[in-house]
């Protein structure tokens, strides 16, 4: 069961739009952290994903476990938010 979702994005990232569009179509709420507007939070995205890239989607479950999906990867994103 999903508790909350955070997406790290940038203004120009097409794949970030796809993740938002997918979650929007599923009627799911999410918090967006735009790294162009909040560059100080890049380290947080890097620590969670281990990669210098966006989108990074962090799905927190009810038991506080986290699933981190790098990029627009439907094979991982869809089951994570199901």
């Amino acid at each position, binding site marked *: 069961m999903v508790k909350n979702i955070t997406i790290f994005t940038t203004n120009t990232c097409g794949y970030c739009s796809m993740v938002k569009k997918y979650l929007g179509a599923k009627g799911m709420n999410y918090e967006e952290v735009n790294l162009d507007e909040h560059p100080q939070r890049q380290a947080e995205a*890097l620590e969670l994903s281990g*990669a210098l890239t966006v989108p990074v989607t962090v799905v927190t479950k009810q038991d506080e476990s986290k699933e981190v999906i790098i990029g627009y990867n439907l094979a991982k994103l869809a089951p994570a938010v199901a």
Partner: protein
Amino acid sequence: MSDKTSTPKHNVIVIGAGPAALTAAIYTTREDIETLLFERGVIGGLAAVTDKIDNYPGFPDGVEGLKLSEDLSKQAERFGAVIEPGEVTSIKDEGKLKRLETTSGEMLAKAVLIATGSDYKKINVPGEEEFYGRGVHYCATCDGAFYRDKKLAVVGGGNSAVQEAIFLTRFTSHIDLLVRSTIKASDVLQKELEEHVKKGQITVHLGTQTKKIIGKDKFVNKVIGYDVSKKKDVEFDVDGVFVFVGLEPNTQFVKDSKIKLDEVGFIKTDENLQTSIKGVFACGDVRSGATMQIASAAGEGATAALKIREYLEGRPHAPQN
């Protein structure tokens, strides 16, 4: 195998949702031809991850790739096109119907349009795979923001490499542009590049092959190149490398079908954009002979849609009104 009566059946399935695919869908759906598109990646394809498109007609000041893609998508959806996130993994010819294996299950289509485009090629050097996402990147608009005030190498000398290098200057302290032979980008881009070279933001290294990508503490810290004229290795101390060295077609899913490919893997079509399977068409960057331009892709999408209409109406090669 599923029964044809229970398998979902569509008039047209378009594989891909880039400019060629979306333009085709605008044309088919506007004529009430039910159309389903499959997109495994980003709607708009490579156009959506291109910072600015300056040569698409109708935009005197250029247009952001993402904006153009979103508008094309909205236009197609306005006429009823349905874009499904997912992938087609195989196509089988069953005469009047084509059977497609997709991530949403089996589907049948009266006509299929392959518009899967191309992706950036890899350079296949040591370190490229190991440091992917940790200093090796193929999408400047996605990952450039991680390199504020840092040093980068950009590999390539074509339009994409030069355009993306210019885009990355908004973040970086310096870029080394590693060009295997000479710059092949358009004159307009070369002039823009010169401005950034004059400002000291970009240094161009012609005749420099990229040999190896090296990292420290899990992240890239150096690129080794080979200076062809001096016949010696040259080191670039950088925090990351972006690679734009040409395109390879997204045709893996047709390798086991009867669809014929050219010697480098692009789909062969006839003058009606029909592939070697009747009723399966191809257009845009995935097609053998494509010019790899967004405007041409859109044009091919429109042509393909009209040819599909003729095919569905059973009147191939009819003159257009």
